[in-house]
């Protein structure tokens, strides 16, 4: 049997998104370990105000400096301003210009105000790591991406820029990036959800909208925090009163999960049948209670290896 996510890990770039606080970051790290086990060289990218990834590897915040934090796993927290500098200096080769102009504090805040610059340069960075970076030669880039709404606008950025009336090298770059992120062979979006009604409803909405409004190909869906099944009622002795709360919670949760999963199946079936829709794999990941920081690599590996395809 093929290991879970084997197909997904064949791609050059995997972007992990989903509603906030449901395990995107952990899933991204676990995927990186999966890829590591396949002998791949991985670059794990985030773009957050404060490093989320580095502490999971027991490292101090890295910021915009990439560093190998586990064998074959390089981590970076891309900062919009530094990334823009890299873009202007390294990619466009305008070092002098940057020193003269872009280091001025005023211009820095000005860049922050420019719509889409941070998004566009982030995509450029992902494209660079995936396709152009001969020095690091990563086999796989994993983006621990923004929550669904912001991610959606990230994916819309190239088209917005292409339609903005701009000309020049930025447009050429954007075209290349646009072609790249639209390529389902190389790029895949992984949507993380949990088996709760509201989250499932949002996930279904996201699936439809990503497909309609952006070029990014959805590759798979992960249902995180799946509870173990509630044991079948035996004619065992009644539970001690102290345990009633927990057992009731477990039973109710298992039932609610089953319902949400059913709703998800129906929704995805409907999507697959809609115009241009299709099937894609759904994986279930177990609730593990808590992962302590820094992560125990063996624990994370066994968790992701236990993924079950729905």
């Amino acid at each position, binding site marked *: 049997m093929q290991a879970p996510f084997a197909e997904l890990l064949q791609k050059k770039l995997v972007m992990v998104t989903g509603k906030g*606080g449901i395990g995107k*970051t952990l899933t991204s790290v676990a995927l990186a370990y999966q890829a590591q086990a396949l002998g791949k060289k991985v670059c794990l990218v985030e773009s957050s105000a404060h490093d*989320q990834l580095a502490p999971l590897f027991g490292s101090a915040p890295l910021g915009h400096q990439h560093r190998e934090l586990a064998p074959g796993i390089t981590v970076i927290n891309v900062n919009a301003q530094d990334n823009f500098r890299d873009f202007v200096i390294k990619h466009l080769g305008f070092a002098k210009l940057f020193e003269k102009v872009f280091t001025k504090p005023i211009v820095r805040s000005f860049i922050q105000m420019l719509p889409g610059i941070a998004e566009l340069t982030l995509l450029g960075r992902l494209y660079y790591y995936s396709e152009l970076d001969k020095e690091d030669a990563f086999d796989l880039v994993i983006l621990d991406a923004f929550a669904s709404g912001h991610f959606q606008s990230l994916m819309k950025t190239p088209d917005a820029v292409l339609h903005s*009336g701009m000309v020049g090298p930025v447009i050429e770059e954007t075209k290349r990036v646009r072609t790249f992120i639209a390529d389902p062979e190389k790029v895949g979006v992984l949507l993380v959800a949990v088996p709760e009604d509201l989250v499932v409803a949002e996930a279904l909405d996201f699936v439809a909208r990503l497909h309609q409004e952006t070029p990014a190909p959805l590759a798979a869906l992960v249902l995180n925090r799946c509870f*173990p099944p509630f*044991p079948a009622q035996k004619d065992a002795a009644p539970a001690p009163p102290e*345990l*009633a709360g*927990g057992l009731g919670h477990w039973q109710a949760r298992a039932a609610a999960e089953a319902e949400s999963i059913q709703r998800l199946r129906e929704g995805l079936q409907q999507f697959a049948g809609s115009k241009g829709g299709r099937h894609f794999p759904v994986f279930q990941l177990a609730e593990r*209670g808590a992962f302590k920081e820094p992560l125990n690599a063996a624990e994370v590996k066994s968790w992701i290896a236990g993924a079950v395809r729905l």
Partner: protein
Amino acid sequence: MSEETSVFARMVADSRIIVAIGSGGVGKTTSSIAIALMAARAGKRVGLLSIDPAKRLADALGIPLGSELVRVQMEHSIPGTLEAAMLDQKAVFDEMVRRFAPSPAAAQKIFANSIYKEVSSNLGGPLEYMALAKLETMLKQGRYDLIVLDTPPDTHALDFLARPNILAGFIEHGVMSWMIKPFHLAQKLGAGALFKAGGKMMHGISSITGIKMLRLLAEFLVLMEDVIVGFNRVGREVAQSLRQNSTGFVLVSAPYENALRSASHLMRELKTQNYPLLSIILNRNMPFDVQATARAWPDFAARYPEWEPGLGLLTQRYRYAQALADRLQSEAQKLFQKDIPLLLIEEQAQMILSEDSLWQFTDALGKARVLGSGPSKY
């Protein structure tokens, strides 16, 4: 009155402004609404400002997303009143432009600028300024006993207090004149004069982004100059009145590592800027009866192995959450050199979708367990 409710009763009685801060996804807006409802139920005239809230919360209060303060019509009858604005970014941006643009014609020109269209619906940064402007209006009106401000969901929420005039650089450093005005001029003189006026730097920039984009941008900034001046004035005034009025902060968090990380960042920033932290609301805790099971489970585990998968899991989660709550509280204690009440709220079985569910949450907040300031821990 029980000790639990008194935490909030005191808070609501002593403050004129309560600012809720916290990262995304921890129930910050819901908590802000609950604080507002609690005060209204205690007979206060309350104003509530929420920035980019989930639409379902606006729906639950029965008011539209927009820029206007709307009197919330409630089915429950309460002695006080609640007026709320669920600020929609674009609506508020438009309102600010209308207010500060030198003329209606200039405002129309700004609305038509394609960069403005992009910025006003997609740019996160100046959103705080919008809320501040609204807050300024509310303070001036003097119609409210208490104003509750729900900040945008990120760890930079306090930036606007630290640097209320972040945009001032545009004007004070003369960027308008050395960078933008040449373009303005160029529009009149024709593009040829542009490079003479702007020099080499301009040439560099234009080769990056394209001249059309720059022209739009120049137009945008020139048009926005007055608006930005207005923003800055408002920002400074409000930051000042936040200090003069009795303003208290409530930190909202949840028992997850990353939520706690941003919580501790926010606390340190509050401390640096010398703002008081009134209390911490820790949402998304396990239901209390489940916590009771988690505490009891080690004594029963050997007898009921078939329940280990679920109950063992719940016990693990409980301990983890408990450790995080303790950590948060002791950090707050160390930082502010006093006990900061930490309110533990059970996770809501039901999403907030109606007025009833908001009241339920409000009651939960009133009955929340207080960690650290009483004799009973958990």
